[in-house]
């Protein structure tokens, strides 16, 4: 099976989820990738390390900004030149719009929110959770190419050390696709890793008590070498920035370790973090739903446990 993986990038780095998806595609068949942007040629070589045999590159100033519609034109051009069985996207604000618009452009089926891809009896099968992840559906396609949008944080990138052939192409653009313009891009400077890329996340909920207590969580995150995340309630209350929000209306993350501090763990939060490797929860309410799916839960006062844990982790790392 021949795959095309859409590689999103930001500030000279390929996005982690896209690389994870590329690794997965390479394990299922022949993986090629498409890289769109301005001055992105150097990134093409990077994709080879994660299993791409060829990287189709359109380096065009019209693709400089992170806008979806010119990318739909670019993909249509490429898919007119080359045949693929499936085109895969790792979900993000940009990629979801590109995938959905491409589905309409090509009248090609798009399955979204997938948490796995498999090839069964020579057919691509997507796995899609539904109803708060209480049911998993096997989904398929009745058109070519199969379009798939995979939930963020699903696949871990695996460096295989290969190299990719770079295949430049030139996109044909439609007028309406170039009508929207990026006026400003303001990127928050965040300390430490962003939550999508972090191996360890310490997340805080309303149980923290107030914005001033975020210091506790930040200290623990620093000691563990991780990033800080927040629940929707905390972000809505203005305690912490939206860019750190995990859950249904925020980001989906899957770090190796997720420490939930003062988070009750309602379904809206759960869907954003349940694929984490290990989940540790600290909450004073013994009936908090988070304890139903935390690998290790402690019922107690976070104001005592968190600083102590920070000390212990520091001591352990210093040893």
């Amino acid at each position: 099976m021949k795959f095309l993986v859409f590689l999103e990038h930001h500030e000279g780095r390929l996005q982690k989820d896209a690389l994870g998806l590329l690794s997965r595609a390479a394990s299922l068949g022949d993986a090629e990738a498409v890289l769109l942007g301005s001055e992105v040629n150097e990134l093409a070589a990077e994709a080879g390390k994660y299993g791409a045999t060829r990287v189709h590159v359109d380096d065009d100033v019209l693709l400089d900004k992170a806008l979806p519609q010119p990318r739909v034109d670019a993909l249509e051009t490429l898919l007119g030149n080359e045949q693929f069985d499936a085109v895969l996207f790792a979900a993000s604000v940009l990629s979801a719009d590109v995938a959905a618009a491409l589905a309409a452009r090509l009248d090609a089926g798009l399955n979204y929110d997938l948490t796995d891809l498999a090839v069964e009896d020579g057919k691509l099968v997507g796995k899609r959770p539904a109803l708060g992840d209480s049911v998993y559906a096997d989904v398929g396609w009745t058109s070519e190419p199969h379009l798939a949008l995979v939930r963020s944080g699903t696949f871990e990138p695996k460096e295989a050390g290969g190299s990719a052939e770079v295949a430049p192409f030139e996109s044909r653009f439609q007028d309406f696709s170039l009508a929207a313009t990026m006026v400003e891009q303001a990127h928050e400077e965040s300390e430490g890793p962003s939550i999508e890329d972090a191996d360890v996340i310490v997340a805080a909920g309303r149980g923290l008590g107030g914005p001033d207590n975020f210091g506790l969580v930040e200290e623990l995150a620093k000691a563990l070498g991780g990033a800080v995340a927040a629940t929707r309630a905390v972000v809505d209350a203005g305690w912490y920035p939206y860019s750190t929000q995990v859950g249904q209306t925020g980001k989906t993350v899957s770090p190796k370790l997720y420490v939930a501090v003062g988070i009750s763990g309602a379904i809206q939060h759960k869907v954003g973090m349940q694929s984490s490797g290990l989940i540790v929860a600290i909450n004073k309410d013994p009936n908090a739903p988070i304890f139903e799916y935390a690998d290790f839960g402690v019922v107690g006062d976070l104001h005592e446990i968190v600083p102590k844990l920070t000390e212990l982790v520091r001591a352990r790392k210093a040893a």
Partner: protein
Amino acid sequence: MKIAVCAKYVPESTAARRIDPQTKRLDRSGEGALNPFDVNAVEEALRLKEAGGGEVVIVSLGPERALEAMRRALAMGADRIVLVADEAAAGSDLVATSRVLAAALERESPDLVLFGQQANDADGAVLWAAIAERLQRPLISQVAELSLEDGKARGKRQTEYGYDVIDAPLPAVVAVSDAINEPRYPSLKGIMGAKKKPQETVSLADLGVGAEEAGEAGSRTTVEALNDPPPRGDTVKIEDDGSGAEKILEFLQERKAI
């Protein structure tokens, strides 16, 4: 200024939800409501109308009984409803839904099409981009602040990396996030008046969409099987007796997470 708000009829959020094992689709036979995320889009449309005049029309695809739930938007202040209600459209996926909805929107030819940030019964959040494509209009998604000036929509939005500000000349398609506003509650007068506002039900034939282009026939994806979720390992819950932090550290070491 004519603003169309695309709204979805979804199962009541308090109702127990199930998937019909026969059709492998969400059982929609119970009570329904206007998708709560679409209420933000209705609110934003009303604010734009209040500032600059015009008309707000609700466009929806759903069963006949969706009309009642959609009246909430009329009670808030929207002017009328166009509901595409057709048995042949049931079970439409993204390709089919966008085809039908785009046909309904083309008939209205609004200056601005608004969407809410997602449906609460599906985690897609993909429809607006497909609609923008079918209407061949510029798109801004995830908009947390919206303004209209000089024939352009300007949207500020949050992404994984921070903020973008994007301009799109009208007519345009804009999807708003639920951070954009605090929706009003319908007034009693609004509720009373809602029933008298125009509420049109149209069929696929009225829109010139063939039955084979909608519903399962017009869809390009399938649900093959339903399975139980993959099991998680055992969970452990302890009471903190003063050694909670030590116990966490031990667990992390045991699982080689540190």
